[in-house]
């Protein structure tokens, strides 16, 4: 039981100050830009909510948002079931467990632009391992810089390569916490593999899977560096996800007002969907 003690505020004060410095001041800058027009020279004019209206009606924003949902949806649909399947198939104890865990965690500790550069080298049509294999061994024409389908397949496979391990490690942590007695009881009852999975393993993994899905949603929805390095948003605009588009507007075109309005809408969507996921996945706990 927690005790009522407002002294707690002193303990959280350093955290509050540091995070507020980093979150509130930049956020206010963004809000400030989002309602003004500038022609440079630090001259600003009140614009009201025009930028928000313009962004919400813009086809370009709708297209980027659509691509973003397609990307996030695809990687969640692949990474979550695949991660669970791999965690189920891993040994529970012995020499190979740390070997598996260390090798699986490795991709997550590589700087994001190195991940992009690495996949670029890996997929070059004539000198990359994958590119060469597809083009010259399987005879499938493959060039990520020309073909939007190939570019999409590549960024999705890259994300699966990069982040499936997060789901594996979380699901595995849930699995090893199940006492052996549960399995023995299931065996005595003659439960099928599916029944064991559905009624013992899945409920035990629920908390960690909630964390996995939330983290994967947030991070994939905000993804920038890896696809930017790999495809630059191309060919054309076919892989221009939300963050890539935002940086193009803000730093490429220097349209600060629309970029700021887009930032706030973007952040609001991320918050809303995260909250929806969280509420849906923890709904049963409340009952």
């Amino acid at each position: 039981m927690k005790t009522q003690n407002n002294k707690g505020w002193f303990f959280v004060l350093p955290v509050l100050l540091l995070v507020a410095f980093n979150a509130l001041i930049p956020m206010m800058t963004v809000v400030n830009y989002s309602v003004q027009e500038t022609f440079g020279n630090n001259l600003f004019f009140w614009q009201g909510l025009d930028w928000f209206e313009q962004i919400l009606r813009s086809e370009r924003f709708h297209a980027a948002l659509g691509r973003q949902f397609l990307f996030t949806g695809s990687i969640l649909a692949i990474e979550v079931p695949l991660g669970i399947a791999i965690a189920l198939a891993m040994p529970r104890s012995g020499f190979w467990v740390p070997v598996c865990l260390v090798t699986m965690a490795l991709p997550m500790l590589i700087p994001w632009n190195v991940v992009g550069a690495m996949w670029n080298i890996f997929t070059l049509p004539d000198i990359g391992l994958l590119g060469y294999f597809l083009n010259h061994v399987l005879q499938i024409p493959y060039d990520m810089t020309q073909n939007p389908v190939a570019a999409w397949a590549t960024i999705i496979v890259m994300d699966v390569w990069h982040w499936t391990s997060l789901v594996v490690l979380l699901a595995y942590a849930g699995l090893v916490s199940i006492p052996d007695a549960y399995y023995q009881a299931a065996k005595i009852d003659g439960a099928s593999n599916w029944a064991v999975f559905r009624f013992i393993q899945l409920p035990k993994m629920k908390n960690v899977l909630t964390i996995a899905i939330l983290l994967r949603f947030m991070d994939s929805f905000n993804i920038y560096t890896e696809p930017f390095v790999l495809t630059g948003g191309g060919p054309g605009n076919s892989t221009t996800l939300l963050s890539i588009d935002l940086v193009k507007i803000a730093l490429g075109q220097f349209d600060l007002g629309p970029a700021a309005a887009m930032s706030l809408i973007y952040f609001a969507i991320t918050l809303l969907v995260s909250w929806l996921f969280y509420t849906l996945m923890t709904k049963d706990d409340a009952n």
Partner: protein
Amino acid sequence: MQKRHILPIVYILFLMLPIYWLIAMSFKTTGEILSGFSLFPQELTLDNYRVIFTDPTWYWGYFNSIAYVTINTVISITVALPAAYAFSRYRFLGDKQLFFWLLTNRMAPAAVFALPFFQLYSAVGLFDTYLAVALAHCLFNIPLSVWILEGFMGGVPKELDETAFVDGYSFPRFFATIFIPAIKSGVGVAAFFCFMFSWVELLLAKTLTAVAAKPIAATMTKTASSAGYELGLLAAAGTLTIIPGAIVIYFVRNYIAKGFAMGRV
């Protein structure tokens, strides 16, 4: 070997292929890379690594990254420990709202903050210092550390605190000599995550630095575009950025599964 182990084995092979290719490329000469496909380096060369270890812009990039990652990890853990203690032991006005607000910062796209961060850190005179990047990365590492540590602290019975206070321990002494050792695997895991997210992040690190504190990964993009497309050099630099991560994982290998579950299994 059982049949069900095939899936993890295939998965690990899939993970290792691009890494192998990066390492193989780093040992090839530019001539060999451009002349066509070869599965193994034909004439093993260390030239790419020699360039990196003799050119200050390269090896300083490496030190710069390690410097700001270390500072960030120390700051994040130091301030997150008491905060996590408060969240795990006390109820106070607005605690739930504050905790949720902290977590929302984990959801903010870095791209949203790039330009305001540049202006903010220029205004306070920290632009192009280790401290700027370290503080900026606190945005997502402090909330994460508080969250992980709070999970681990929840697993320590409250009786431990009460007994210590009855025994006459002052709060700071109890916290430093009894409580922190009791959750040291949690501290290790939180430090691992801070290291990881600060090491891999580039957008903010690149925005907040110019020369003096430029991260290795940013040096890579710059060099790759200015000096033609030197794939071997790029691959060597990339290979070197994998090493610190590999060392850190090796140290936490026994806590890694629990750590990824953040003490909440």
